[in-house]
């Protein structure tokens, strides 16, 4: 159903909560479906970008840690082989 119906004033429900106020603000803001879609896609794109960036950062850190561990293992084996000779 469009536009979204307001939350009914009922002191025993969500009326006085922050969530209810936010929801009502959102309802007023998106009276026009096109605006709602633009906002929706904007939020989705930003979320995706943020997620991708976070994953990339995690991969970069993991790759760096992996490289450090690999180099340390290589150095330890090489040093031991040299000690044997």
């Amino acid at each position, binding site marked *: 159903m469009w536009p979204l119906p307001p939350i009914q004033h009922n002191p025993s429900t969500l009326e006085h909560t922050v969530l209810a106020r936010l929801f009502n603000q959102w309802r007023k803001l998106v009276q026009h479906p096109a605006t709602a879609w633009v906002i929706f896609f904007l939020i989705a794109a930003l979320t995706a970008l943020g997620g991708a960036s976070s994953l990339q950062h995690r991969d970069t850190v*993991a790759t760096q840690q992996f490289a450090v*561990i*690999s*180099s340390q*293992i*290589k150095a330890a084996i090489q040093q031991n082989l040299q000690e044997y*000779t």
Partner: protein
Amino acid sequence: MLRGGVGLFAANNHVTRGQWQRYVQGLQLSTDYPGMLGYGYATLIHHDQKARHVAALRAEGFSDYEINPPGDRPYYTSIIYLEPFNSRNQRAFGFDMFTETTRRAAMEDARDSGEASLSGPVTLVQENASDLQPGFLIYLPVYQQAPHSLSERREYLLGYVYGPFRAQDMIQSILRHDPKATLIDLEIFDGEAPSVATLLYDNHPEKLETVAAVRSARFSRQEVLSAAHHSWTLH
């Protein structure tokens, strides 16, 4: 460490079995050098010295001593000292390592360079049917006097001080001090072309399906290390 054995020969005209035994006992191989099965000396014997050599070893009390494998060759490199002289190492006693291609390549390299040379993967003579794992050897040449050229290195060669290693045991002993090593899946291959045939060490053997699977891991890195004229690839 192996250079110490070369030094022992340099300091004495002749190293006896007892001297070798005491020297190696002092090194505490089992505690300080895990994975190293023994500390040995293989002597070079020219064909015309063979009968005298066999007689001398038999006179020491080894009445069944023979150079293995049997047969006539221009020269032999028989293992005469290998400590600890336990039942496992006694299997290598008298073995002519020059008769096996992989060992021979490393021995020739050590002889001609005058430096330590690490062999490719071999099945050690000491291996038995249970817990079979790849092995390798490190050789150092012993000369009767300091050589100054390639021809002198070949002419003055007396034998080889060497160490036989079980690859899994040796590498595991190095990495056991590093808890980070358990966090990754590590394979070590002989040479620079990883394949199942050249696999020396794997810390998660159950995970090694194919080399392609190893290569497709999300985080993978390949490192090549060089030691004693030889390369290993860490993956």
